[in-house]
């Protein structure tokens, strides 16, 4: 069973969301998702300043096996991207919930966080896959 930290929120499309406070969240893909994709070879990230809406495809995780769209789990403005992934995409494999983070969003509406899954809800969604 994959590790699913209880302090994070999740989207069914396998993104995780960490509330950093002051309306900022960090987004990455789950350990379960990186395991399905296999070794990551390229990560294409959005531009800082982009305005994104929930469900937009904003990034691409390309592994040896497949290219997978990453969707914005919430609406807002991209305020930072993980530039380390440019040279070290494998961080997504080795530390999906940590150094493998992808981008940070300044939320348009903080209440949107409440509509995301908690760890238990995400675990159920994986089981149904």
């Amino acid at each position, binding site marked *: 069973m994959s590790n699913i930290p209880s302090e994070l929120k999740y989207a069914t499309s396998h993104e995780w969301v960490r509330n950093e406070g002051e309306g900022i969240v960090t987004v990455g893909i789950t350990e379960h998702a990186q395991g399905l994709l*296999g*070794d990551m*070879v*390229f990560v*294409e990230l959005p531009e800082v300043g982009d305005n994104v809406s929930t469900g937009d495809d904003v990034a*691409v995780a*390309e592994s*040896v*096996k*497949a*290219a997978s769209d990453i969707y914005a789990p919430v609406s807002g403005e991209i305020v930072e991207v993980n530039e380390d992934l440019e040279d070290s995409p*494998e961080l997504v*494999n080795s530390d999906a919930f940590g150094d493998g983070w992808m981008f940070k969003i300044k939320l348009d509406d903080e209440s949107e966080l409440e509509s995301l899954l908690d760890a238990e809800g995400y675990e159920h969604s994986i089981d149904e896959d």
Partner: protein
Amino acid sequence: MTSKTVLHAKHLESGAKMVDFHGWEMPINYGSQIEEHHAVRQDAGMFDVSHMTIVDIQGADAKAFLRRLVINDVEKLNVAGKALYTGMCNNEGGVIDDLIIYFFTETDYRLVVNSATREKDLAWINQQAQGFNVTITERPEFGMIAVQGPQAKAKVATLLNAEQTQAVDGMKPFFGVQAGDLFIATTGYTGENGYEIVVPEAQAADLWQQLLDAGVRPCGLGARDTLRLEAGMNLYGLDMDESVSPLAANMAWTISWEPSDRNFIGRDALAAQKASGDQPKLVGLVLTEKGVLRSGLTVVTADGEGTITSGTFSPTLGHSIAMARVPRSVKIGDTVEVEMRKKLVKVNVVKPSFVRNGQSQL
């Protein structure tokens, strides 16, 4: 219901992620297929290839039968143990399978064919053997381990007894020899030196463990695919199948046209294709920008469209490579375009061989 090789438990012990590969439960990786890939290019790795099908062809007509069955000519084989890569075609010149034939004597040959094509291969071989004095014997009682990489032979050497050491001493590439209980061949599917070892099932797990203890890294089908693609080696079912001519699959070199009176299956169809010169060809593609070329993508050229047959990220080169079937008039050195994620990207056309013996061929 999937089949399991004799090494199944060893894979699980090493933390393998198992997948269904044409009905066989096989390791896709043991954690990181890229690290496994590098182990083979830089040191030594091993693959369980026990799912592959071994077929022995013996009898007074064995040679005559094989000269009819396959597009290459076993007449070329006259040193015991010498191996030959070839295709086996249908009457229309489509590739039923690609295979390796080992020669022992003119009445004794060993074929190694793909696992995914096992049933149709055996049916075809038996059907074509009508009228020839041969026996066709599948040998499922063996496991097979491919040990590949610059240190592969040295690491295997530490496990061999005196008789086996002598048997493989100085063996050239593309040979096989029975050495005690093991059949050891200098063949492979990675573009590196190494052995493919056929081992009785009862000894396979012990041999695997000894190789592990000797520092040989277990590698899954994921690394096997990136290694063979870097080496420019075809994968049956992707790069060719029964609808594809060997002339369109970079296998023209495996067709022995001489002597002209050798009536191999598919000869008439292939000769007509060759004369008309209209078969597409298989080339290599290189993408140095971000992105990964994938099987099935469309290739746009000035001479018409083509298709990527196999594509991947090359761990050795650090960018994507592919094999593609394109119009014959496309030349090595041309720039063509591939439609990727709704946009056209430029790629270079190269010979379909990217990495050999750890070195880039580009």
